[in-house]
């Protein structure tokens, strides 16, 4: 298991949280975290690990900060 800090942005925060320490299996990817949080992957715009853009298949390490942003497209 690994403890990560997960940060959510914009409407992904609604009925969830802004920032939280979460425990996941060592093999968990960013996509696994997104699905665990009941976020629709199709609505995800940007994902970051420790402030660096990453893809959904990336496996964060213990202590990493994972940030998840929705697509914001309105004008």
């Amino acid at each position, binding site marked *: 298991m690994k403890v990560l800090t997960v940060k959510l*942005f*914009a*409407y992904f*925060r609604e009925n969830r949280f*802004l920032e939280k320490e979460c425990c996941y299996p060592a093999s968990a990817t960013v996509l696994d975290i997104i699905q665990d949080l009941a976020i629709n*992957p*199709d*609505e*995800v*715009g*940007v*994902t*970051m690990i420790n*402030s*660096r*853009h990453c893809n*959904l298949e990336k496996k964060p390490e213990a202590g990493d900060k994972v940030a998840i*942003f*929705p*697509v*914001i*497209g*309105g*004008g």
Partner: protein
Amino acid sequence: MVENLQQHDLNVLASGKWPERYLRNNGPLTISDQIRLLGSTVAVAGCGGLGGYVIEMLARLGIGELALVDPGVFKPDNANRQLYCSSESIGKDKVQVALTRIREINPAIQAQAFKQRIQDAFPTIQGKLNVVVDCLDSVHDRLELGRLCRTARLPLVHGAVNGWYGQIGVQTVKSNLIERLYSKAGQEKASPSVLAPTVMYIGSVQAAETCKLLLGKASTLHNSWLSADLCTPTFDRMDNR
């Protein structure tokens, strides 16, 4: 007429004085800054929510020439957030309503209306542009505009909104900000609801960033972006990585 007014203002500035309409820009802007803004051309892509506020502020700042680009007309459900949507403007072309408003605010700047998509107007206008402002409402159009600006080596001031939330960043000629924000397959919820304060906040930062780009001023938002949450509220600037 507009050219005469603008030339008059430039002559006054060149003599070391401020025309009254710009007098209260004195301080944050120098006379040479104001001359530079009056010699600049900016395209506003999308003249609805963000675009309305951006146009309003660029006209008041004294940007010399504005190209207004939007194929749409005002609809009743624009009223909650779009500055130029009123009972009088429903059914009218957004670019024409914005043009009329600019002439009321500042008759000494030039503006042209293009009732078409930015992709279609771009070949006509790109040659004289200094900055493009992204006030679009579609991910597909944003990606296309991001690519057009990169090819034309034009800086792009990006803004986008949804509900209480928004984002603002500057794609400099060397950056690929729009691709970084939108290249994932993700789709936005169709026609998101957006609140007026969110639109006004993001539009304000876009106008400020546009002004600074024209003046060659540095910004922490160059090749980077800010995620704004007006509900919590929190404002997070992303590192430039």
